[in-house]
């Protein structure tokens, strides 16, 4: 029993290290993708709870938790996809500084794929292979979404700045 407890504690400590390392960037990426701090928090917590439950069975915990969190967030977005309008701003954006509101509002106008590609690649700094894996597309397809997303985001931000 003592050994089991030690193993569990060691596993939890390992997950906590991953949490301390990844959670801030991951949460911000989720928030940018979903436009909702609530969905970001839920997805992140879900992913880490699952990681904790898997103990040492996950080989690359950081990559796994990013994939899982975005999968959870994607599911929540699907659940909400036929929901009512939440207004012109993403959830809670009204509490944020104006440049950030502008950014998130522009992000929201990208297609989901474009938004996901830009967030993961250009903000999350994930390698292309990993982004493509999370998105479930080929690298060539990722490139298309990424270049379109950047161009669209650039145009939207320029329009706002103008």
């Amino acid at each position, binding site marked *: 029993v003592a050994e089991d407890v030690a193993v569990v504690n060691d596993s*939890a400590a390992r997950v*906590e290290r991953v*949490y*301390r390392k990844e*959670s*801030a960037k991951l*949460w*911000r990426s989720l*928030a*940018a993708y979903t436009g909702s*701090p609530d969905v970001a*928090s*839920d997805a*992140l*917590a*879900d992913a*880490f*709870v699952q990681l*904790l*439950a898997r103990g040492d069975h996950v080989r690359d915990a950081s990559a796994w938790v990013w994939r899982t969190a975005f*999968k959870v967030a*994607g599911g*929540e977005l*699907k*659940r*909400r*996809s*036929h*929901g*009512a*309008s*939440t207004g012109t701003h993403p959830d809670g954006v009204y509490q*944020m*500084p104006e*440049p*950030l509101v502008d*950014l998130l509002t522009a992000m929201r106008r990208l*297609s*989901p794929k*474009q938004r996901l590609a*830009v*967030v993961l690649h*250009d*903000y999350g700094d994930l390698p*292309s292979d990993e982004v493509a894996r999370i998105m*479930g*597309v*080929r*690298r*060539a*397809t990722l*490139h*298309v979404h990424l*270049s*379109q997303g*950047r*161009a*669209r*985001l*650039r145009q939207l931000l320029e329009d706002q700045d103008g």
Partner: protein
Amino acid sequence: MDDIRDRLMLLDTLEPPDQWTQIEAGGEPPRSEGPSPWRRLAIASVALSIAGAAGLFLWRAMDTSGTTATDDPVAGEVQTSWFRAQPPEGWSVVLPEGRRIGHGLMVAQFTSFEVDAPLCLGESSFPADGVLVRLTLGSESNYEESMVGPALDSSLRSPTVVDGAVIGFVDDCGVERKLLAKFFGPDGHVLMAHVLVGPSAGDGDVEAVEILLNSLAPTGHEPISTGLVDEQIRFAEGTAVGIGRWVMSVRRYADESERSLWLHIESAEHGWAVNLEPGDPFTWVMGGDWMPPQMVMGTAPTGAARVLLEIEGRSTLEGTLVPLPAGEFPDRIAYWVGPFRGVEITAEGSEFNPDATLVVLDAIGQELARHEFS
């Protein structure tokens, strides 16, 4: 691109909550309340077809031929001067008022989606000429897909009549759907959208899809020349166990902001690609899109005589080397390894063994490059 990264750095001002205590407790994280449903497409099977805008010829045909376009559900076969479909038994079709909604390569996918599943435009819905088609679903979702994409999948190049056969596929959102048909117009331009409604759909569902259809709006963008996808050079082909016929090509993608060059290998069902960026000639892409058998492919330094993939169980798979088009790539040669019928790259068969090693050897067995998939 740096300007985008700079703007994204603003996200660092967001203060994330510390949820570790809650996570460690293993408790269910608090669920945020979602918005009240705009429209529940509560019946399981609602099928959507996205087609797109017409070229001048098609537009004239629509104007003069008295097509069957109508807001009312139409049972049985649907036929216009450019389109024919036979929904499965019990299904009906809702057509919007026949009108042009944009420009682009016409691709239609009749898919079924379940309750709460989002509308998801797959990559094969991308017109090739780079024009936006706006799809507005209520006020919550406003997808403005930029329709710049690689050449259309060759399997979509001839019109297909819906015959009721149901084929499963996984869409870009990772949702399993039933593919009922896919086809496109005679001159490669998108004309209009249709929705197939399942037999158990109620009035509310039909109303919902009518609203959806009528939310399709012209973007006002003028067609862009297909110069956005500059060229595709097919330089090698063959037949192999496991995948049948394969074709290797170099494709140059370009848009207003970026240009890139990719090496592709495609079989009848799968495709893989790596970026041919200047720099290290040793590149690889692992895995595949959906299911085994899988392959690894990429480029190896010039002088490579063998490419070996060492997988679990001390097995070694030998790759096929393929010279790239002469002149452009003096520092590298293309290769691919697998898929081999009966050989599972991993125990699960869906990914490479994390311990797999890719080794490039020259003619005398000297190692030129190595990559560990771990």
